């Protein structure tokens, strides 16, 4: 079945829309245009996923040049699923932005903000869609530069520092990725991923390939923010404008996870990465430490954005853990968790944006008794939190289920125990919020506080509700994830 120009439209549409957005000087117009574009992108990504699930891999040749010489966009179950995640988040966050951005960013910069948002989106979609290693680097730079700008637009002065740190650390990561890709190119003479994965087998016992693996994994881990190279993440998420925190938390790290999957499994292959190279021995301890450290640090945080940023570090640990098993159930768990965590964390950060909008702060001390004044916002926050704990009937449970199963299959008992222990830690930090918001008396001046506007609440609840929906109806997410895991492991059923 032909997909026509859909694959390229997915990436080029926001790229073209970004400069147009700058030209639309009025804030409202720019916003409406951005929202329209993100909805088109969502429609495209759904169409693509349907076609890939029905008919297998879609290959699109850029400019008509045949691969491996020309650039190829290559869509399979894995990246179509990630494209869908990014587009869902972008499409849900876009309507939310109007009021949140109006409150947090000075009006003259609005059109720039929306343009940069579209550019960031271009970068993320491009990384995911392309089948060319160098292209990945290019799009990663686009998305990173755009994210630095978006974070720097945050309301407080610390936002600039956070963006600067992210810039330095992110550039190091991207450079490592480039060095790794360069090494691969020297050894094989090709940049096309599919072609690379074949040719790499001939030279897989050469030292430069080892170095390439090291550089590429570390480069991607920096983007993914796995402990101990997570330093940029808490500040960036805390200081960014609320809508951007939600967007980045829900999509940028997911693209990092995708890259890790793509490079480890498709490019280097599971035998090379896990049998020839001790990748599991490196990834697994790091991810376990990430789970513990992220969750425990989160317990002691008072700024909720920072709290959930650290919780993200813990959750990224779960993702990396699933990948580190190198087995079908581990990968299924990791991919399902990518989706589920995007929904939960996206919803949580949107709810935090509602708090910023009404209460002006996300400090735990300003939340006293807020459960009565802003019941829907707080309920969304709590529902998302329950998902992070992994309470049954939320999607977090499904991910944990597969991860525990993978640990048991691999005969790694202590790991299964640690996964469950992580849930207990999440219970504590979510419990603190419940306690403050619902069981502390509200201060007298809280009377005037109202629920957040509907235009912000509805997107928040779409994400939260979908995280519950996919906790109960697991067929869709799990079947797509299983298919993706099989594609990655090269064992199609």
């Amino acid at each position, binding site marked *: 079945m032909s997909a026509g120009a859909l694959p390229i439209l997915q990436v080029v549409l926001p790229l073209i829309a970004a400069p147009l957005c700058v030209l639309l000087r009025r804030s409202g117009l720019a916003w409406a245009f951005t929202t329209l574009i993100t909805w088109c992108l969502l429609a495209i990504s759904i169409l693509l996923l349907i076609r890939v699930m029905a008919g297998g891999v879609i290959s699109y040749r850029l400019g008509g040049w045949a691969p491996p010489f020309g650039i190829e966009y290559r869509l399979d179950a894995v990246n179509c699923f990630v494209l869908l995640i990014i587009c869902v988040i972008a499409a849900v966050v876009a309507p939310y932005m109007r009021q949140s951005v109006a409150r947090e960013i000075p009006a003259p910069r609005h059109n720039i903000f929306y343009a940069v948002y579209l550019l960031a989106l271009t970068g993320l979609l491009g990384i995911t869609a392309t089948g060319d290693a160098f292209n990945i680097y290019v799009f990663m730079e686009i998305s990173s530069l755009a994210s630095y700008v978006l974070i720097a637009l945050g309301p407080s002065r610390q936002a600039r520092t956070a963006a600067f740190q992210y810039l330095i650390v992110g550039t190091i990561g991207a450079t490592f990725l480039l060095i790794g890709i360069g090494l691969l190119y020297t050894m094989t003479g090709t940049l096309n991923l599919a072609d690379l994965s074949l040719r790499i087998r001939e030279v897989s016992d050469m030292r430069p390939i080892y170095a390439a*693996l090291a550089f590429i994994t570390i480069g991607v881990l920096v983007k993914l923010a796995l402990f101990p*190279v997570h330093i940029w993440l808490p500040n960036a998420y805390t200081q960014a404008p609320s809508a951007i925190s939600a967007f980045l938390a829900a999509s940028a790290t997911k693209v990092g996870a995708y890259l890790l999957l793509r490079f480890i499994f498709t490019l280097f292959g599971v035998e090379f990465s896990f049998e020839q190279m001790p990748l599991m021995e*490196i990834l697994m301890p790091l991810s376990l430490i990430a789970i513990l450290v992220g969750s425990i640090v989160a317990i002691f945080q008072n700024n909720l954005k920072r709290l959930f940023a650290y919780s993200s570090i813990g959750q990224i640990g779960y993702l990396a853990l699933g990948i580190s098993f190198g087995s079908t159930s581990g990968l299924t768990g990791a991919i399902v968790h990518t989706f589920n965590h995007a929904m939960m964390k996206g919803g949580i950060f949107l709810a935090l944006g509602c708090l910023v909008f009404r209460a002006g702060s996300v400090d735990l001390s300003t939340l006293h008794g807020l459960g009565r004044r802003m019941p829907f916002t707080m309920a969304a926050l709590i529902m998302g939190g329950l998902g992070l704990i992994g309470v*049954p*009937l939320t999607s977090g449970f499904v991910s944990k289920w597969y991860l525990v199963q993978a640990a048991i299959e691999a005969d790694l008992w202590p790991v*299964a125990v640690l996964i469950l222990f992580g*849930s207990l830690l999440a219970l504590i930090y979510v419990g603190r919020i419940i306690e403050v918001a619902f069981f502390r008396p509200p201060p007298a001046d809280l009377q005037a506080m109202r629920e957040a506007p509907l235009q912000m609440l509805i997107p928040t609840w779409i994400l939260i509700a979908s995280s519950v929906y996919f906790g109960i109806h697991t067929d869709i997410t799990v079947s797509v994830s299983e298919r993706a895991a099989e594609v990655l492991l090269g064992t199609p059923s």
Partner: protein
Amino acid sequence: MITSLPPFLIFFAGALVVAFAPNRLRPTLTLLVPLFGGWNLWYVAAGSDLTVALFDYRLELVRSDKLSLLFGILFHLATFLISIYAVHIRDRLQQVSSLVYAGGALGAVFAGDLITLFVAWELMAVSSVFLIWARRTPRASSAGLRYLAIQISSGLLLLAGALLHISETGSLAFGPLGVGSLAGVLIFTAFGIKCAFPLVHSWLTDAYPEATPSGMVFLSAFTTKVAVYGLARSFAGTEALIYIGTAMAMFPIFYAVIENDLRRVLAFSLINQVGFMVVGIGIGSELALNGAVSHAFNDVLFKGLLLMAMGAVLHQTGKINGSELGGLYKTMPITTGFCIVGAASISAFPLFSGFVSKSMVMAAAAQEGYWIVWLLLLFASAGVFHHAGIKIPYFAFFAHDSGIRTREPPANMLIAMGLGAALCILIGVYPSLLYGILPWEVHYIPYTADHVLTQLQLLFFSALAFAWLNLAGLYPPELPSVNLDADWLYRRLGLRGARLAERALAKAEQTGARLTEVSSYNFRRVAMQHCGPASVLARTWSTGFAALWIIILLGICLILYYL
């Protein structure tokens, strides 16, 4: 053709409706839920098995057999009674969470597989804690958090055990498991925590008395009974349970006697009654199992009745400490009467419900030749009579007049207590009503001269001792309970031993509490030091430091790859 709905679904749907119903309609709706549920149970009983697919497995959401139906009936009855008791309450939080909690309990007893059980298990934990938090005091909020942590741990153990069991055997079935494998031990521990086994019981006595008046009645009806059901389903005939159960029946007596908070006395008494059930399950003969589950049935009724009476006292006077109450019979005569019916039932007076079930467990112990266990249980029975049968009504309603003048509680509370009392007597007089729905056929006859005389002897001599001690002024609450019945049963055991035992127990508990405190303090200190806001892990590192880490990680990778 009418097919049945899953019992828990009705409760969850009810909870949803109640959550959004206006204030005035809520009590009525809450009452309608168990009524409709009971009507539906009729069809469930006719045979209903509902399975759904999750992942690669088939989950059996509803399995109806005689054992699950008995608990199903019990939970509907309990929800109905307690909902009447709670009609006057204007608290959305309590009404919704109690329905969800009851639904979770029903989900657990009708679950045919371990995954459904786990989901229901966690749901009960999460919903029930709101009944504690609904008291809205700082004590309740911290006790609730402790309670939740332990309940969730129990759920996690269950999940770990279930997953292990599934991967070992490939079967999800929630059936006989035994403690032969690690999976069995994990699940056993999970049940044990919920069942308040000795040393893991403290969540119960810690948190329950902090709940709201009706909340505590709810809590006492469901959580431990679901655990008893689980043990009966999966671990019937496990010998360890006999000794664990005996310990459970024994040790709370000492605490109950020195406890001042009357609702906490009943919390200890709850553990003690559950102990009898656990012994029955451990013996595992048909008679013993019948005794265990019928005692669970009766316990919900009479313990509920006693808790309702104490709740009424708390509701009317705001006080619950034995030392602050007394003489209330003058102003609350009806409540006093109901409380005495409950006390007589829990003490197993002939013609009251406790008698027809507890004696089955005792008889089974004797039949299977566990004579020491039988003796210990007899001692425990005397202890029950002392701390629950006499102490509760005596200190609340009689004793020295505290001068409190109050009124009878609202009519709905009286109606609920009246129904409960009526059921206690009805089952005591016509035991065949209860025996008819037991899972195994009953050949046991409670009202033989032998049974009745033994029991009456036990009770009257205990009462005599109490009266004498009281008249002689020897009965401050600090005295150990064995004083009461040392007369004819435990002469050889002696006061000294009992006192020593009590002291040792108190010491052990103190040490335990201290150890937990110290270790939790140390954990917090270490965690704060390394993960607190000012620690190295939570600080913002300088960019150079971050870059250094990237290089270190790269170095480690390169070295590992090149080796």
